[in-house]
């Protein structure tokens, strides 16, 4: 997945890159990027739909307060993408609706 994004990066000192997966597609992110920044750079928006109205959302505050950036990271849903940095091989999925808890036996804590 490469960038067709309305967001433009500012020129800064060149940073090292890491490769992550967004919805199964490889994407080259900058080291130190938050997952939310990487999603914006990748044009992977909307990055989720809401549990209540299913309306589309994308990262908004970039500082951990709005919860608009919820995504699945390495299999764990409801992660605030702006609060987590990308790392090599990370698997990010856009999240539709609410996190499901009850796969299989609900007595097994997930």
């Amino acid at each position, binding site marked *: 997945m490469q960038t067709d994004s309305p967001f433009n990066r500012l020129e800064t000192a060149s940073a090292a890159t890491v490769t992550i997966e967004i919805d199964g597609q490889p994407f080259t992110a900058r080291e130190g990027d938050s997952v939310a920044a990487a999603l914006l750079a990748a044009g992977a928006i909307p990055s989720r739909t809401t549990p209540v109205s299913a309306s589309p959302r994308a990262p908004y505050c970039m500082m951990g307060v709005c919860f608009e950036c919820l995504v699945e990271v390495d299999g764990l849903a*409801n992660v605030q993408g702006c609060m987590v940095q990308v790392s090599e091989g990370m698997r990010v999925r856009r999240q539709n*609706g609410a996190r499901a*808890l*009850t796969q299989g036996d*609900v007595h097994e804590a997930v």
Partner: protein
Amino acid sequence: MSVRNHASRHDTDVAIIGGGLVGMSLAYGLLHQGKTVTVFDEGDQALRASRGNFGLVWVQGKGDTCPDYARLTRLSARLWPGLASELRQDTGIDIELQQNGGLYVCLDQASLQQRADMLARMQQDAGGDYPYEVLTAEQARQKEPALGPTIAGATWSPMDGHLNPLLLFRALHQAFARRGGRLINGQPVEHIRPLPDGFDIRLPGACLSAGKVVLAAGLGNKTLAPPLGLHAPVEPNRGQVLITERLKPFIHYPTGHVRQTGEGTVQLGDSKEDVGLDTGTTAEELGKIAARAIRMYPVLEKVRLIRAWGALRVMTPDGYPIYQQSDRYPGAYVVTCHSGVTLGAAHAGPLVDWLLGKDTEISLEAFSADRFPL
């Protein structure tokens, strides 16, 4: 600020002191009966149970030592669907009322037995018309598969339910404004002066006359009541509440300690602390709440918590409401209770009839503050 907007001799037919769930439920009912209503509410620093509660419309076990309270609670639960749909018509707001029954989960046999005995007594007091079941752990898990392997069992009642208390609060306020109610907020009422045929309500920079005055100021009633010849010995009792991230629905029935909201968050709570006017939270109490919730629903163990708060209940010495008219100044009333969500529909209906001197469906004598020593 003095507005005479109709034939009445007063600025407003009824002044309600306190714009919490109790005051707004009464105000809503009064507007329906064609009265003009002014609600006075303090500033944002006020203590406000209505913004911090658990949202249960709860019946089972309520009023175990006071059959009149048990009856009032059941009446209110029966009136709730009507009020919810009226509010929806008035405002378009769905308050997420669900009354499909509720479970009270017990973690040990002794407390299960105690509850079973209590409910048996209440059923007898109600002449048999008090449906409930005592469920073994296995039976409870058949109803609610997410319940854990170490619970002792649960009591079940088809009468219980829950709603979203913040949406209720918003709906009441919107409907109130839409039906012409007047809200004066930001300042505490300082003084209420009885007139020969009504009351003057005074706050910094304003004075309004009212035909009747209702003290519905929660913990504020304690100081507002005595000058009007009323008695409201209410004390704060803190409850802490924890909120999880939003999850797909997996809890079907509310319990006294855990419920899943219409939006998917899980609300955990039911701590009781006597800590004065402190609305803070403590790691110790929140830890206990979380540990108990995980024993009830082990699947919660890996769930993230998003926020927590503390709020103060408005408690009378016996936990039951005070509904009283002043002997010394007729037309002055105090209305205060702990379960303002559950009783909201009764407050908007029968309690309003009582305030207007009409016949009510239910006897309110048991709720006089004369039962407490002065």
